[in-house]
């Protein structure tokens, strides 16, 4: 802006600062609560100055909820989902933008429509598939009478079973498809000039070489943006990991926080719960801080 408007500047800065306070206050409360002992955290009102039990609360939360293990699970889960989404949406968009085949537009719109079907809406069928990936095929065989036919011919009754519950695959795979990512890549791929594709063809690069050597390096900002968004999204998932992981060895940090939340009638150890929350929040904060620059660039995508 070339305009010099000191008053307007002051007002905007004030608004911005108020917004910052509103955004940061819950974090402060969590941090402060995590630093008090059981007595102080339950005072009404809770003291707003930090107490001296921060480190011991953190250690307690860490061991009680087995956060070391759970954070690793979360990392594998969120990292896997982010990597999977980045890769799958990149090759999906590649197919849709650069190849001409029947039903191309129909497929794109079919993917686009799934934007309206978030995980929560389709969670029951998704769970059913995760519980037995081959279930739908079994149903087809049953309905068409093929199961009976096979049983009659061979004497073996088919019962296809391939469950993904309580496994990293089960956690990650059903969440990997993403309309948002496909759309983001599609918009970026559409800005790639045709001449660049043709130049690569003239240089002898086939479709896979073009993708690896030209398209992927050019879309690194989009990759960073999408990976960041999807990592955060996956890290914060609650419902899906809760459903799929009945066995705590595969539970994620976010779902395991419930171990720290005091039961009705239990000891109200909110200080421990808040300490755990703080630990679980930390990786996402780090990701945002580190990736922020790429993230913004990937979303504005005007780099020349």
């Amino acid at each position, binding site marked *: 802006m070339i305009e010099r408007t000191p008053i307007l500047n002051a007002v905007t800065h004030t608004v911005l600062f108020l917004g910052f306070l509103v955004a940061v206050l819950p974090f402060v409360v969590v941090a402060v609560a995590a630093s008090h002992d059981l007595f102080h955290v339950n005072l009404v009102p809770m003291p707003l100055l930090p107490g001296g039990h921060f480190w011991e609360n953190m250690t307690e939360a860490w061991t009680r909820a087995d956060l070391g293990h759970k954070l690793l699970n979360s990392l594998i889960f969120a990292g896997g989902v982010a990597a999977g989404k980045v890769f799958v949406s990149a090759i999906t968009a590649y197919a849709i933008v650069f190849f001409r085949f029947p039903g191309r537009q129909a497929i794109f719109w079919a993917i686009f429509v799934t934007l309206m079907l978030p995980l929560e809406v389709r969670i029951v069928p998704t769970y059913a598939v995760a519980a037995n990936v081959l279930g739908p095929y079994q149903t087809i065989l049953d309905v068409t009478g093929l199961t009976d036919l096979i049983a009659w011919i061979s004497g073996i009754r088919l019962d296809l079973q391939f469950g993904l519950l309580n496994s990293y695959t089960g956690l990650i795979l059903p969440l990997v498809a993403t309309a948002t990512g496909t759309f983001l890549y599609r918009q970026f791929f559409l800005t790639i*000039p045709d*001449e*660049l594709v*043709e*130049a*690569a*063809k*003239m*240089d*002898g*690069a086939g479709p896979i*070489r073009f993708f690896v*050597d*030209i398209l992927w*390096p*050019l879309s690194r900002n989009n990759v960073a943006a999408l990976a960041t968004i999807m990592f955060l999204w996956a890290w914060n998932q609650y419902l899906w990991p809760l459903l799929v992981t009945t066995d705590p060895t595969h539970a994620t940090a976010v779902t395991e926080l419930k171990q720290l939340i005091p039961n009705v009638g239990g000891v109200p150890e909110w200080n421990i719960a808040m300490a755990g929350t703080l630990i679980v929040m930390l990786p996402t904060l780090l990701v945002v801080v580190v990736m922020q620059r790429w993230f913004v660039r990937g979303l504005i995508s005007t780099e*020349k």
Partner: protein
Amino acid sequence: MADISIRKVAKSYGKTSVVEALDLDIHSGEFIVVLGPSGCGKSTLLRMIAGLEEISAGDIAIDGTIVNRLEPRERGCAMVFQNYALYPHMSVADNMGYALKVAGVAKAERLARIGRVAETLGLTALLDRRPAQLSGGQRQRVAMGRAMIREPKVFLFDEPLSNLDAKLRVQMRIEIRKLHNRLSATSIFVTHDQVEAMTLADRIVVMNAGKVEQIGTPLEIWHRPASRFVAGFVGMPPMNLLEATVETDTRVRLADGTPIDTPPLALRPGTPVVIGIRAEDVRVGAAVNDPGLVLAVDFVEQLGAAALVHGRFGGHDFVVTAPAALAEGAPEGLALGIDPPALHLFDAATGRRLATVNDAAALARPAVLAPTA
């Protein structure tokens, strides 16, 4: 180095025909310029040769091999694009070496060849730069280098100079021709710029509306345009074209009744024709032998060495080249002299050239007649 033979090649998108049954033989080592207005199908023709566009009918053979079904990389062509199409994330060296890398050439040899090509094009100091850090002319050079490095049988140029400023364009034009003389690979150069066509080509292919209007050397195109379209398209300013009717064997009459002497014709009196004469072939001035022809001057474009005088003659817009001194002081009228040998005659209906006895001698005639002022 390779012959290219194009037989009845056509391209259509659904019902829209872009190129119609086109025949063209290109000799090994020849520099062919395909010239035409935008939308005439010239780029489509080039892209069909490159293999970037499928052909709807006909055959294209490079070096005797039919390449209709071959991938671009199997055809041995290299292409320079209008917007250069450099890979923005790669250095100049990587851009030029990419084709070799794809072809699996060992790194040492790759670097050696990049070095040689860069030296030829004066790019040695820029090898580590990214395309974004280069000027237009430098990018153009990199694009040329990328094509040269593969030592292709055929070079294809798709309006490569149209994004450069006027001065660079002239410079690059000369460099492209020098390069061709040295490499002597077959080159096909598509442009809408007639100056590029005239200066670069061994032979020019003039295209219009998906068809070839004329194939010939620059001088043939200049002196014996095969059609009204070619006559109007090649030449700056464009050739004056006037509607006329045949009166006798050696005379036609313009729409407004002005008689013009022509070379001997074998046409029935009353036949409608179009006569053409280049601005610089018209004699201008006071001392003219035919006092009946006068140009009503509208305005003068002073070029310094000469002047273009625009006006009305014979019921048509008419341009002549006049000596700068004569055009000074905005004269109201100029006396014109039209010599029969300087005339081009075209069929009014088909637009094709009508043969006259002068055609045989045409190539021997000097291009510009000295004004008699």
